[in-house]
């Protein structure tokens, strides 16, 4: 993808991602009466789940040359029944490999760098933790800091699991099941 398309895709994704966060945090704060830090925690953990899910789908679909970073992770074992995983399909024509690479860049630029990057935030999380410290609520500050990081890690793991299930159920075009 050329630079201009990347800028358009990431800019649009980032703008909508930030607006989605603003809306979701507003709903969690206003609708469920959660404190601001909990609302941001909720959005961040949701984003961490979604990045696991989306990343796995992009990597399993658009890495026919077998260079996915996922193949070093434990989750890769669950994907072994997937066609061409993890080493890719060496018989694929170069033009298809090129197209897959372009699609991977497009989707990861829009959804991962853009939407999810804009939706999740570390700065508001830091600010709200500082706010808890300043108002003397040390226990909540520690809970927020440790809890967000741990829950985010687990949520990404869960996203991988859901992504696996989705990827394995996807109809396989090159080798239809007999």
């Amino acid at each position, binding site marked *: 993808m050329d630079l201009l398309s*990347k*800028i358009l895709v*990431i*800019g*649009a*994704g*980032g*703008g*909508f*991602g*930030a*607006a989605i*966060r*603003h*809306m979701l945090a507003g709903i969690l704060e206003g609708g469920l009466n959660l404190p601001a830090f909990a609302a941001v925690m909720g959005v*961040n953990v949701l*984003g*961490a789940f*979604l*990045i*696991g899910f989306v*990343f796995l789908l992009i990597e399993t679909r658009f890495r026919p040359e077998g260079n996915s*970073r996922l193949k*070093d*992770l*434990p989750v890769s074992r669950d994907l072994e029944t997937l066609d061409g995983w993890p080493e890719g399909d060496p018989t694929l024509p170069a033009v298809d490999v090129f197209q897959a690479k372009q699609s991977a860049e497009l989707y990861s630029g829009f959804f*991962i*760098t*853009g939407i*999810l*990057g*804009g*939706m*999740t*935030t*570390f*700065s*508001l*999380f*830091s*600010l709200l*933790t*500082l706010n808890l*410290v300043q108002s003397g609520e040390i226990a909540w500050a520690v809970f927020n*800091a*440790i809890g*967000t*990081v741990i829950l*985010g*890690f687990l*949520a*990404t*793991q869960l996203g*991988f699991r859901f992504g696996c299930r989705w990827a394995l159920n996807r109809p396989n075009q090159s080798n239809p099941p007999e």
Partner: protein
Amino acid sequence: MSTLIAYLFVLLGGAAGALSRFGVQELFRAFTRWPGWVAVFFVNVLGSFLIGLVVAWLQGLIALEHSERLDPLQLYIDTQDADHGLALLAAGFCGAFTTFSSFSLDNHFLAKESRALLLFNMLGSLITCLAAVALGWSVGKAMAG
């Protein structure tokens, strides 16, 4: 109506923030040989500093207006402007410039690579970003006078 405008500011700031993050990541990739998570660590620290600065500064300005001007209409306008400033710079730009999802994803790759690096990224990000936001906060307060 003002909510809609606030969303527009968040959207614009978010687009600029995500693009700046992408720019920093590309710069790191072009000029250093560090792995990708270092760039995410860096933007999170920088963004935390900026949000502390911006929020303390703008809130300090509102407080200043409160003490000096008693005209309620003017006060309302000033607060609105500051609110839009916060929507653009804090919720929009800093919010989208930093990222938690990529941080969580990177942690999975680090967990596979080495437990020490994973702990370094998790605890290091937490401690450095909190220190950065506190530093930004005091700088912003000083700027507002």
